């Protein structure tokens, strides 16, 4: 682990490990408690594999009552808990803690109901993202958010991370596609937010829960909205001599009132790596490659393809191919979808970043990245959700060379600082987790972070659920609750009063 400070393990909890394991076995019988080092290895990291830590013990509950009892028990005994779905987080959101119970939700793997008239699916949180689409595709429906890990990632984890994907400019993130959840609070209380109706009453706790990275509660059931699969999808593969032209093309497409189903950009190193890997005919003479996918009724797709092609030519595209068949459309995507493994072939290791920027700042950010690349002596390839400005730089390094991981992390942090400096944010879809935790002050001041932590206090006043994630410095709720009121201060003298 490279210099990441996690909350100090509680020695009392560590000393009581045997008792805790026995008590948890009483709640979750059989194979639901995993405690040997060998068996726990499988859980020591998530998708951010640079960080590893064995948990105190792993618990795999099967029922909501068990989740409730485990949390209540841990709350009463002041034992920390780290929730985990499929463990695909790219930001270390499910990184175990030495003194914490790892609560794994993978046995909650059933679809509970499919309701076509209302177009909703009710699923347990361990069902995979793709599993929902699989359950309804025979009737022509699908679940829209499609993170690249969709074959493995769980819907409960999607709620925790507010996962996005290639299609979210048009179809929204997880937050826009979840109608309700059942969840368990740290004290064991089971509550329901929303349901099959379109809006929840009262405060938008569902909105706060979505993307809360497992710090506020454990999701035990999810109700999602499903959509009819579009009739047709066709894609354009467009190459530009400069990233400025590619960026302007994206702006002009949106300016023409077109919101494509997907709009992805790759820079020269990413194009080259992808083409070497999958050989689908990506043009190698361009600095920016754009894939624009239009979906909907065939007549609409045909109509818009023509418009997008004209916009591309006007912006000086050197290549503009239009998919004539489903095979060709998939070939256009094959390189983009294989970009990560392709980069994995040209470098022993790579580190995937996730900032969002105002799209018009793309040339400036790419330029800055090239300078940083020279400074750190590490290569970088970029894939970019161009429609929404979400950038995924892949930093190339070799973990076996001393100091390179640290350099890659420092490079990544500088890229994110650059994203914030141009008006963007630290993370578009991967979450803060442990990875970007210490960068939070780049975006938020102390007051902003304190107010976020106070929300945490309403859900989990003991800071027992997933501590050490998201917030660079944990402050006790009692301290956060203290008021600093200056009596007798006169209201702003210039305020007009009537």
């Amino acid at each position: 682990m490279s210099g990441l400070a996690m909350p100090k393990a509680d020695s009392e909890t560590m000393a009581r490990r045997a008792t805790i394991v026995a008590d948890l076995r009483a709640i979750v019988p059989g194979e639901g408690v995993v405690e040997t080092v060998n068996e726990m290895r499988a859980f020591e990291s998530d998708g951010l594999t640079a960080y590893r830590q064995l948990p105190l013990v792993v618990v795999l509950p099967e029922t909501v009552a068990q989740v409730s009892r485990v949390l209540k028990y841990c709350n009463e005994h002041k034992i920390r808990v780290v929730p985990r779905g499929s463990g695909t987080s790219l930001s270390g959101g499910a990184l175990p803690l030495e003194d914490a119970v790892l609560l794994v939700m993978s046995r909650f793997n059933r679809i509970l109901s499919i309701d076509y008239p209302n177009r909703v699916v009710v699923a347990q949180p361990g069902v995979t993202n793709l599993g929902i689409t699989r359950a309804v595709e025979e009737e022509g429906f699908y679940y829209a958010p499609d993170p690249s890990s969709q074959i493995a990632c769980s819907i409960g984890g999607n709620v925790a991370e507010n996962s996005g994907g290639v299609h979210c400019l048009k179809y929204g993130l997880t937050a826009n596609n979840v109608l309700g959840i059942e969840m368990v609070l740290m004290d064991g209380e089971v509550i329901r937010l929303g349901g099959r109706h379109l809006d929840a009453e009262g405060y938008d706790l569902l909105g706060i829960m979505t993307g809360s990275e497992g710090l506020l509660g454990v999701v035990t059931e999810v109700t999602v909205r499903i959509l009819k699969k579009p009739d047709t999808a066709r894609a354009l593969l467009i190459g530009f001599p400069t990233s400025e032209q590619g960026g302007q093309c994206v702006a002009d497409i949106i300016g023409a009132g077109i919101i494509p189903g997907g709009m992805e950009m790759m820079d020269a190193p990413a194009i080259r790596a992808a083409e070497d890997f999958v050989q689908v005919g990506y043009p190698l003479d361009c600095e920016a490659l754009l894939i624009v996918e239009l979906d909907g009724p065939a007549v609409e797709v045909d109509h818009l393809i023509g418009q997008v092609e004209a916009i591309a030519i006007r912006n000086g595209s050197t290549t503009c191919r239009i998919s004539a068949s489903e095979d060709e459309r998939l070939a256009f995507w094959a390189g983009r979808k294989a970009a990560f493994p392709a980069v994995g072939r040209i470098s022993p290791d790579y580190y995937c970043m996730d900032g969002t920027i105002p799209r018009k700042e793309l040339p400036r950010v790419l330029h800055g990245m090239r300078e940083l690349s020279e400074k750190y002596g590490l290569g970088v390839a970029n894939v970019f959700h161009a429609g929404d400005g979400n950038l995924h730089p892949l930093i190339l390094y070799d973990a076996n060379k001393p100091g390179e991981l640290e350099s890659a992390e420092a490079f990544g942090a500088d890229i994110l600082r650059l994203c914030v400096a141009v008006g963007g944010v630290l993370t578009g879809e991967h979450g803060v987790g442990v990875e970007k935790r210490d960068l939070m002050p780049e975006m938020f001041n102390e007051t902003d972070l304190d107010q976020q932590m106070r929300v945490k206090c309403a859900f989990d006043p003991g800071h027992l659920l997933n501590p050490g994630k998201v917030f660079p410095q944990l402050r006790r709720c009692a301290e956060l609750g203290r008021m600093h009121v200056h009596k007798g201060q006169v209201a702003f003298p210039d305020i007009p009063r009537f």
Partner: protein
Amino acid sequence: MTTFTPTTAAETLSTVQWALAEEAPLEVIGHGSKQGIGRPVQAEHTLDLSRLTGVTLYEPAELVLSAKAGTPLAEIEALLAENGQQLAFEPMDYGPLLGEAPGRGSIGGVLAANLAGPRRLKAGAARDHILGIHAVSGRGEAFKSGGRVVKNVTGYDLSKGLAGSWGTLAVLTDVTFKVLPTAETETTLAVRGLYDEQAVAAMALAMGSNAEVSSAAHLPYPAVARVNGGRFGSDATTLLRVEGFAPSVTARLAMLTALLKNAGPLEEIAGEKSRLLWGEVRDCAPFAGNDERPVWRVSMAPSDGHAMVMALRRQTAVDAFYDWQGGLAWLRMESGEPEADLMRALVKKHGGGHATLVRASAADRAALPVFQPQPPALAALSARLKGEFDPKAILNPGRMA
């Protein structure tokens, strides 16, 4: 009794800090277009944000717009329209329903009330389009959340957390919304003469098709007689809106017509007439006017709403119509009695959801829970959240209680 009308975020902060020090509760209002919703606020002073105005950032190509909270919604919508864009969730205007002039709401109020419109089915509500906020908490602290880009998961989404909080958690000073292109054209397919149950089935069929219907409403008699200048006469009418590029709208309308050819007599309403019609559905025009008969806004699963209404009709006289495929029922209680207990019992019995008493006399609003009461554990969590934002209860005290 003082009304504070700050023109900057700093003045807003200072006012809240003063109120906190004095423990003097504030009624927080924008332009007051929704002041009649919720329990009457018991506050000595008013914090009026109607002069905290101005669009601070608008970048059509980036799909973002930021404005100070008191900026009139009408001004923002006009600016967006100049660029062929819109707030896709088409926030409703409560003014006419509450007997006020139309077009008076503020952009901050749009978020504070989590407004939506008929396009809710496809485009969501204010909470689905908010990107970032600046606000002053009841602790007298200015804080921000979110950002100015369309995709962001950095930290808790407090912007959504303030959606639908009716000014009880924090005072918004600046909001950033995602904006989207306005559809090139729209046409509505009307199906005539369906009973509620048939209409709900027809709407579900349409919404589950590839016609990409963006709104689905059903207006039984007499509500139907009060829209589009009475063009539908007294026949119940089910409305399906198709929006987009012209060739696509034509194709999808043909698809929809084929799908519903046996449902009942069909009629197409194009362009401006269609837009006006959906504006009337959005703003609850059938019940608008200077009228004290209570109006409920009931949100349920789309297939459940009509059964609840049918059960309610057996016990009391109700004028009703449906938006959101049947998932949003607007109900006017013809007897003048809100019947809150009956209403909520029936909602619960017919699959759950929530009912808000959006129009009622001040006396009824003071005596009854205007917003849906929550189960104890959830109510306790909501109360703790309120305590973390506004521990001294100085912001709109009691409004959502």
